[in-house]
């Protein structure tokens, strides 16, 4: 029945016992108490597993969420480079074919009146020129962007 008091004194030293920060004498005293007190030894175990949990939770999260390492991943960069090149190649081929066919059609097809053919040509040409103008603006803005190297 004299349990509560020794337990209370031991309890507040449990963390330090776990961290190996007590004097040898105290360490010994706590050790002896734990051997015969199931409650304190259960608390010690709980604290110990919590300590590892905290370490895992905070350290792995740092690694897993470190974006720059993901962005600097070499294979992913190659893949994205290959992807973009293939896309550009395909775009040029298909676009070239489309322009070629369209202009041949417009020049040779005598069935439709000349003003309609001129209109269609103007429509497509206008869209292409508008696209180019926006593209140019974008590129200029990118080249002169002061904050380009700022990592957010």
């Amino acid at each position: 029945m004299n349990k509560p008091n020794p337990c209370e004194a031991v309890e507040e030293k449990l963390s330090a016992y776990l961290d190996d920060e007590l004097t040898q004498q105290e360490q010994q005293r706590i050790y002896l108490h734990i051997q015969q007190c199931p409650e304190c030894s259960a608390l010690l175990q709980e604290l110990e597993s919590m300590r590892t949990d905290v370490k895992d939770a905070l350290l792995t999260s740092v690694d897993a969420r470190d974006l720059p390492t993901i962005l600097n991943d070499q294979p992913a960069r190659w893949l994205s480079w290959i992807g973009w090149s293939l896309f550009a190649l395909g775009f040029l081929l298909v676009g070239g074919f489309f322009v070629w066919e369209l202009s041949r059609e417009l020049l040779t097809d005598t069935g439709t009146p000349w003003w309609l053919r001129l209109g269609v040509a103007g429509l497509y040409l206008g869209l292409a020129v508008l696209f180019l103008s926006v593209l140019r603006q974008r590129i200029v803005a990118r080249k002169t962007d002061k904050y380009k190297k700022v990592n957010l």
Partner: protein
Amino acid sequence: MHTLNNPYLQWYSGGLALARNLLGCPDTAQDVLQTAITKTLSNKRMPDDQAAQRVWFFKVVRNGCFDYLRQQQKFDRSAELEEVLGAAEAIDEVETNERQRWVRKALQTLTVEQREIIVLRDVNDLSYAEIAQILQLNSGTVMSRLHRSRMALRDALQHLKVENGGIYE
């Protein structure tokens, strides 16, 4: 730059864990760490032995965090420091382990003092004497504060467990 053999880089992730817990914002935490690393490069008079360097580094990180928070407060005087610290944490989706998420959630319910001492000890394995230097306390206070913080974390975890039907085990 001597970045690659900079001895301070080995404490980078530990320092980042501390800054994240104090600031709640991963990006700001990285900024603070960046500044701390820069200081290790530019400072002329550095401690010589590793243990002292580590203490110095964590002091710099911790001060950096509090400087940042103080700055924030100048812009928003209505917010209490505690509020700023508590509310900011946005735990995100990239979670691998349910249990780790619980621990992190429980940590957020503690006070700043409790959180920082737990991170310093459990994540960074600093000795009580080193923690005492960083927090400018005496070792006895470190011992009791750490224990109280751990008990508070335990309470918070049990609380979460009751609330959510005991998934944490």
